[in-house]
């Protein structure tokens, strides 16, 4: 098995996680024995990522910056098989959720996680959650710097941070190292974008107060350019201001986006900069050797440039249309010539988005070992990524993915749908998401049609908490409950691309569940009739406005 090219736990990390496993084991035993009430136990289990959903407990496992070794992925498969129903759900925060965990066995499951340097700490609660990153990090041709180095530095700083263990509300950070934002940084509590200034120095744009949920907001720039070694001190200052002024009297107004909205970004900036001025040269100023020590662990794999035009690939492209489409949609440029980034679609026609069986996880691990330096990524769009594949190996990778059902040539297309678990699993949901995604996926399954329609992102949430990111879907679908009936509200024009980030606008009255496919069909038909050369769905929408879409949808349903 190849060596990993990302951070490996040290003795301190291992001791901390092992200690937490034993603490949790004791807490579970006391709960089962009746020594702890549910009220006393609930915050303890949530701190360890264990939720109680509609039918069972759900364990949310942190996948730091969405990066997995094949050993870790195989272990996740084994845990799913041993302690769950043999499958898992990859989420929009690059985590894995196991939906049928037994409380009695949860300590054993997290002990097994610890064997491969993983845990579920801080995947719930009002703390800094798992830091997410561009899923092409360390491989993308357009990347300025690998953001995972900084995710790891933040992980170490924020894990069990005593000052930030009881924030007003949960706190999500995302980092991108590319001008093409694949990490949705403008819709996070803090988004960080690495960029190079005119002097060629690389630093962070710090964006604050973005978020989806009940009150969606696009983040505002707090600091245009922050030197990298000042990151932790600046984050600590920002979190400290939020912790001090963030509202605790109303859960719906407790996120940092509300604070920034209420006091304004100028006032927020003044508060943060004042706090920062007092602390910036303290213990959190990062020494160059500290940064280098972490960065060394993310050293890229030793890939040598190879042929970019491979006769076998060109031949298969001509004879196999599905492969040719797959090359167009699922294969992205790598920084090293002759290599590529491959996205395995966890959205085959009619499948629950983001779900993978234990056998499929093992199959993905086998492919990564053979063709991708033993590394797999989880994308926030609920797919799996092979970051380092030689172009000459693409036919073999494609065939191997076909056997797993993960070779659908639909990345970025209408069936590459983000969907939250919805009312089938989630205790907070008002309506189902997965069956709606399945119906749309089946309806638009034909690949040539999908590619003709072009890039079109549908995102579905089963409630206003917006785990399915519906606000930033080109077509957003929100499930609501009206007098016991599931209805679906459509919104158009959302986007997370950098420089074009936008929240969708509600189209009109919500439609019944069995009319959603018809409505999406009407939206697509309107676009196809009106589009100009090179326009995506969202471009046409921006040019012609909502009226033609509205007329067609409400005429149709």
């Amino acid at each position, binding site marked *: 098995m190849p060596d990993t090219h990302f951070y490996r736990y040290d003795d301190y990390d291992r001791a901390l996680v092992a200690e937490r496993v034993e603490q949790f084991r004791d807490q579970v035993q006391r*709960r*089962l024995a*009746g020594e702890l009430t*549910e009220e006393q136990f609930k915050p303890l289990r949530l701190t360890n990522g264990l939720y*109680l*959903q*509609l*039918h*069972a*407990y759900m364990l949310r496992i942190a996948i730091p910056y969405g990066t997995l070794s094949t050993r870790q992925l195989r272990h996740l498969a084994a845990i*799913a*098989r041993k302690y769950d*129903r*043999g*499958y898992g759900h990859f989420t929009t925060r690059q985590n894995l959720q196991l939906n049928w*965990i*037994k*409380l*009695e066995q949860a300590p054993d499951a997290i002990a097994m996680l610890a064997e491969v340097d993983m845990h579920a700490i801080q995947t719930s609660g009002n703390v800094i959650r798992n830091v997410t990153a561009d899923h092409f990090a360390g491989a993308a041709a357009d990347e300025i710097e690998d953001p995972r180095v900084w995710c790891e530095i933040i992980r170490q700083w924020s894990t069990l941070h005593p000052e930030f263990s009881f924030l007003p509300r949960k706190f999500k950070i995302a980092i991108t190292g590319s001008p093409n934002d694949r990490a949705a940084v403008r819709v996070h509590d803090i988004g960080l974008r690495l960029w190079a200034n005119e002097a060629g120095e690389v630093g962070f744009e710090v964006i604050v107060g973005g978020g989806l949920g009940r009150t969606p907001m696009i983040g505002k720039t707090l600091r245009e350019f922050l030197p990298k070694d000042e990151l932790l001190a600046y984050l600590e200052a920002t979190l400290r201001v939020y912790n001090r002024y963030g509202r605790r009297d109303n859960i719906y107004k407790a996120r940092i986006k509300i604070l920034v909205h209420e006091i304004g970004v100028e006032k927020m900036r003044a508060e943060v900069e004042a706090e920062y001025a007092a602390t910036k040269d303290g213990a959190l100023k990062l020494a160059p050797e500290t940064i280098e020590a972490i960065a060394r662990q993310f050293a890229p794999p030793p890939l040598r440039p190879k042929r970019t035009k491979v006769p076998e690939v060109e031949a298969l492209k001509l004879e196999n249309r599905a492969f040719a489409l797959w090359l167009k949609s699922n294969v992205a440029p790598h920084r090293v010539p002759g290599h590529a980034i491959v996205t395995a679609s966890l959205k*085959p026609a*009619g*499948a*629950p988005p983001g*779900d*993978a*069986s*234990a*056998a*499929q996880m093992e*199959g993905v691990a086998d492919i990564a070992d053979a063709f991708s330096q033993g590394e797999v990524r989880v994308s926030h769009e609920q797919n799996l990524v092979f970051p380092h594949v030689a172009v000459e190996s693409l036919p073999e990778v494609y065939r191997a993915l076909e*056997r*797993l*059902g993960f070779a659908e040539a639909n990345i970025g297309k209408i069936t590459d749908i983000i969907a939250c678990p919805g*009312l*089938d*699993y989630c205790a907070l949901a008002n309506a*189902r998401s*997965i*069956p709606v995604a*399945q119906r749309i996926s089946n309806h638009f399954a034909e690949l040539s049609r999908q590619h003709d329609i072009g890039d079109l992102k549908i995102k579905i949430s089963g409630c206003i908490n917006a785990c399915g990111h519906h606000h930033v879907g080109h077509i957003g679908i929100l499930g609501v*409950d009206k007098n*016991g009936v*599931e209805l679906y509200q459509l919104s158009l024009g959302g986007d997370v691309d950098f420089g074009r980030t936008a929240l969708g606008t509600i189209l009109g009255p919500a439609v019944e569940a069995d009319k959603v496919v018809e409505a999406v069909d009407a939206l697509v038909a309107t676009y196809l009739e009106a589009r100009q050369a090179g326009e995506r769905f969202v471009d046409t929408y921006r040019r012609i406005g909502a009226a033609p879409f509205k007329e067609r949808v409400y005429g149709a349903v």
Partner: protein
Amino acid sequence: MAKNLSGELHVASANRLGDGLVVFLDDAGQWTTRLDRAALARDERAAEILLQRAQAEAFGVVDPFLVAVTESEDGTLEPLSLREKIRASGLTFAAIAGEAVRYA
């Protein structure tokens, strides 16, 4: 023809502590995974008593509460709300099996 369109029929439900599964309180005061064995409260007063019994028997379950149901002519109980129907009957789609390499 289902009865209880006025919402008077109720059963008591909870999640089992050890594994989280959905359970219902039966006439003998035991928690069962079978809705057809649930104790049925036919009016508001009976529902209050049922909830009190459920709370008194709450060791081994989490947060008992009342679920409004309908009763068909043959005595079959069905929750009124979609949420409770899904809790009682499970997922409304086929999840992939652990050893499956493709979603069928």
